[in-house]
């Protein structure tokens, strides 16, 4: 009896979760002008429209650039600071570490607003770079936290063992530390990419002409229901799933160690 | 007296692996039974089946004459002390101990009194209000024991309860476990891989390996007269020497010839000699290969000159002047030799 109820409940929740996505994908193949019933299709006209829409494709490229650049920077800064705090005894370490992770607790809207006012005051124009700076702000605490958690006493002992066996500092770093940290570095980069790629509010506030994909999608939305939005949404969804599968496979191949 | 627990031909398979192979066992009321064996021997699987957490693939389990094979843990007259104690961290020690009584619907006043009584029995009368994380490992173990005993089970099941404790604490807890068992009179079934623990605690030792019972009986008998080669080397150490049985019912080995009652002529068998039965004496000249000092004795391995491929293990007094590489002469009493089928 409980089996039946559990299965029904789980099915209902799965249904709820997938409903909007199913509708999105279904009506991206809509033959007529509106992504609502009745369904006239399937047709690829909206996918063609998306690929021909320069603003959308520019937005896509911009999103990728910003995501890759900011994730790389956030991971690097996160790694350097994690290394500094983990391997050395710095005064007020706990306080400083807390400071670096502070942005995690603040809404993106507020971070974006602060930067908007600050840049405005400095006379800096809205741009992709401004948005990128914001993205590093939101991703740096995450990278730091992930990498720092993987640099504890256990890893320190392994490095000591390497030193004990004669490795010089740079060898320890390249042959022991970096490979050991690889999963943490990868996870940091990947998560930052995910957050930056999808981020809307900061990009919306801090960009003007050149902007990221979420903002371009938003602009599309302002014009009303449009199957082009479905198409681009489904594309984003598809790409994200592929990336997620890649991540799964990579993360899993590491298991046997 | 009829057995309290009867395990009849119980087998357990997990996919291709056979964890238990047609095991049969009887547990007497008031006894302290120890299931002894290495990891993978099936002892924990058997305990889980007794506790009702696992249903055997074939066979039956009878407790107090009733068929409990498919009965849920709650309904069986058993209680289990888990390896990690599984004390509920959000409840006080007293609430933990009283939990089973609460599930039975016992009134608050009565279960508080009983819990307090049981805590006194295990030596923790002042811990009622404390939380588990405030106690040491040994204390938590005792709370787990109290929680299981307070529901007055017919059989108490213990899954490697002393594994997480250091040596001194373990010895102390062994004494206490034995004392508590005698006091409450409940039958205990205790799983361990530590043969010293088994010998210290058990009335009845069950030696298991690869899902089968290799040997069972009182610790004294199982130690002095092990039934199988595995038992001889798992319970204490032995030197095992292979040999051939001749027509006169004697077994000939590299270290001598001994009586082999009950073995067929022409068959291969082996003998086992306990190291404490090997003394310095004029029988077997040998070269000393290793000497390990162990405080109250020296653990010595020698290579007999006339049988260099048959290393002999000896336990010699700590003061024996002996050095690796020198020659020594050892002897043992033929009466102490254990003859085993192969």
């Amino acid at each position, binding site marked *: 009896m409980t089996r039946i109820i*559990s299965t029904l409940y789980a099915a209902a929740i799965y249904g709820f979760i997938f409903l909007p996505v199913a509708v999105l994908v279904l009506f991206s193949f809509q033959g007529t002008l509106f992504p609502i019933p009745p369904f006239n299709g399937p047709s690829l006209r909206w996918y063609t429209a998306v690929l021909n829409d320069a603003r959308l494709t520019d937005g896509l490229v911009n999103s990728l650039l910003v995501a890759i650049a900011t994730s790389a920077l956030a991971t690097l800064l996160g790694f350097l600071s994690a290394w500094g705090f983990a391997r050395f005894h710095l005064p007020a370490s706990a306080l400083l570490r807390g400071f670096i992770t502070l942005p995690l607790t603040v809404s993106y809207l507020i971070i974006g607003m602060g930067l908007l006012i600050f840049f405005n005051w400095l006379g800096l124009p809205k741009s992709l770079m401004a948005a990128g700076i914001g993205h590093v702000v939101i991703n740096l605490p995450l990278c730091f936290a992930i990498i720092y958690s993987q640099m504890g006493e256990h890893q320190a002992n392994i490095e000591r063992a390497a030193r004990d066996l004669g490795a010089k500092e740079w060898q320890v770093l390249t042959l022991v530390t970096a490979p050991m940290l690889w999963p943490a570095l990868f996870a940091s980069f990947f998560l930052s990419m995910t957050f930056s790629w999808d981020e809307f509010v900061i990009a919306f506030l801090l960009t003007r002409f050149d902007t990221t994909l979420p903002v371009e999608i938003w602009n599309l939305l302002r014009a009303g229901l449009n199957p082009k939005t479905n198409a681009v949404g489904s594309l984003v969804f598809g790409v994200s799933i592929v990336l997620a599968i890649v991540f799964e496979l990579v993360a899993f191949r590491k298991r046997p160690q | 007296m009829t057995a309290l627990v009867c395990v009849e031909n119980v087998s357990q398979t997990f996919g291709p692996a056979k964890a238990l192979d047609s095991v049969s066992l009887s547990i007497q009321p008031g006894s302290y039974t120890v299931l002894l064996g290495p990891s993978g021997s099936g002892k924990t699987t058997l305990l889980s089946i007794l506790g009702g957490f696992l249903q055997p693939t074939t066979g039956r389990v009878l407790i107090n004459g009733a068929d409990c094979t498919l009965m849920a843990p709650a309904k069986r007259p058993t209680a289990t002390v888990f390896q990690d104690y599984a004390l*509920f961290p959000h409840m006080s020690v007293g609430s933990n101990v009283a939990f089973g009584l609460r599930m039975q619907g016992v009134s608050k006043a009565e279960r508080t009194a009983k819990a307090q009584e049981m805590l006194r029995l295990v030596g923790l009368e002042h811990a009622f209000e404390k939380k588990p994380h405030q106690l040491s490992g040994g204390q938590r173990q005792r709370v787990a024991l109290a929680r299981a005993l307070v529901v007055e089970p017919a059989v108490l099941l213990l899954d490697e309860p002393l594994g997480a404790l250091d040596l001194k604490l373990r010895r102390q807890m062994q004494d206490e476990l034995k004392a508590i068992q005698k006091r409450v009179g409940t039958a205990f079934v205790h799983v361990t891989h530590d043969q010293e623990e088994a010998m210290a605690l058990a009335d009845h030792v069950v030696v298991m390996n690869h899902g089968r019972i290799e040997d069972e009986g009182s610790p004294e008998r199982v130690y002095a007269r092990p039934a199988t080669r595995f038992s001889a080397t798992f319970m204490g150490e032995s030197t095992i020497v292979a040999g051939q049985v001749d027509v006169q019912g004697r077994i000939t080995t590299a270290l001598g010839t001994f009586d082999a009652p009950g073995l067929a002529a022409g068959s291969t068998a082996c003998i086992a000699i306990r190291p404490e039965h090997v003394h310095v004496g004029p029988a077997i000249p040998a070269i000393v290969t290793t000497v390990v000092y162990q405080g109250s004795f020296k653990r010595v391995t020698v290579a007999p000159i006339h049988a260099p491929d048959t290393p002999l293990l000896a336990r010699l007094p700590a003061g024996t002047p002996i050095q690796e590489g020198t020659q020594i002469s050892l002897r043992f009493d033929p009466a102490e030799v254990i003859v085993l089928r192969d």
Partner: protein
Amino acid sequence: MSAARQPIAAWASVSPALLWTLAFFAVPFAAMGVASLFPKGEAGLSLAHYTQFFTNPSYWRSLTNSLEVTLIVTAISVLLAYPFAWILAFGVPERWQRLALMLAVLPFWTSYVVRSYSWLLVLAEKGIINDSLLGIGLLSEPIQIANTRAATVIGFVHFFVMLLTLTIFANLKQLSPNYRKAAADLGAGPVRSFIHVILPLTLPGIMVGAFLTFVLAIGDYITPQILGGNNELLMPQLIMMQIGRRGDFAGASALSIILMLVVTLAYFLCARWLKIERA
């Protein structure tokens, strides 16, 4: 053991991150605070925007709306996600659990904007729900779901059920299976085992998840803007309006600071509750 050897190297490596956080988080935040004190149209320092918040009913209402919506969303999401996480953790065979979980959070990977938009397709006047119900004949005319608070709640709950399923699942999995066995062994049936043992043990984890939901939801602009329409404004919408239509940075800053204070208050309440739980 990590002595202060080569402290210069240490400072050199932590400085970039510290400076970045200082320059692009702390200073802008302070700038925002300062800006809130210099309202447009008034000379010099003034707390006008803050007092205005309490005196202007529409401003005050946006805060209460935000709190109401967020609390409703948090409650519903937890209530829906817990049993679901339980089924995934204990009802699904081990081999399939990762897959089941991945499927349950797959829509996480649609763009957040697109995800909210897709609910519009479902809830709009000509959307799926209205179309189906009209088609079956259960309705004679379309009902208004989009551009109402209900739509915002549905949109939020959709997102947070996925998030909470993940966190509660992790929470349930790290419980030692021996707790349930011990409870069962001592006579507790599945219901009592849950009430007396599992629920109390998972409560701190739920609280953390609920807090995360609260913080993310109350600061979100996208979902209420797309789904809730402009009849009822939540705080983030109000804030964006100050910047967008009126170019009023000072006002927007003041509202942001107030929102932050609310979140900080929630944080302290949560932290205090968790500390009590632990005692």
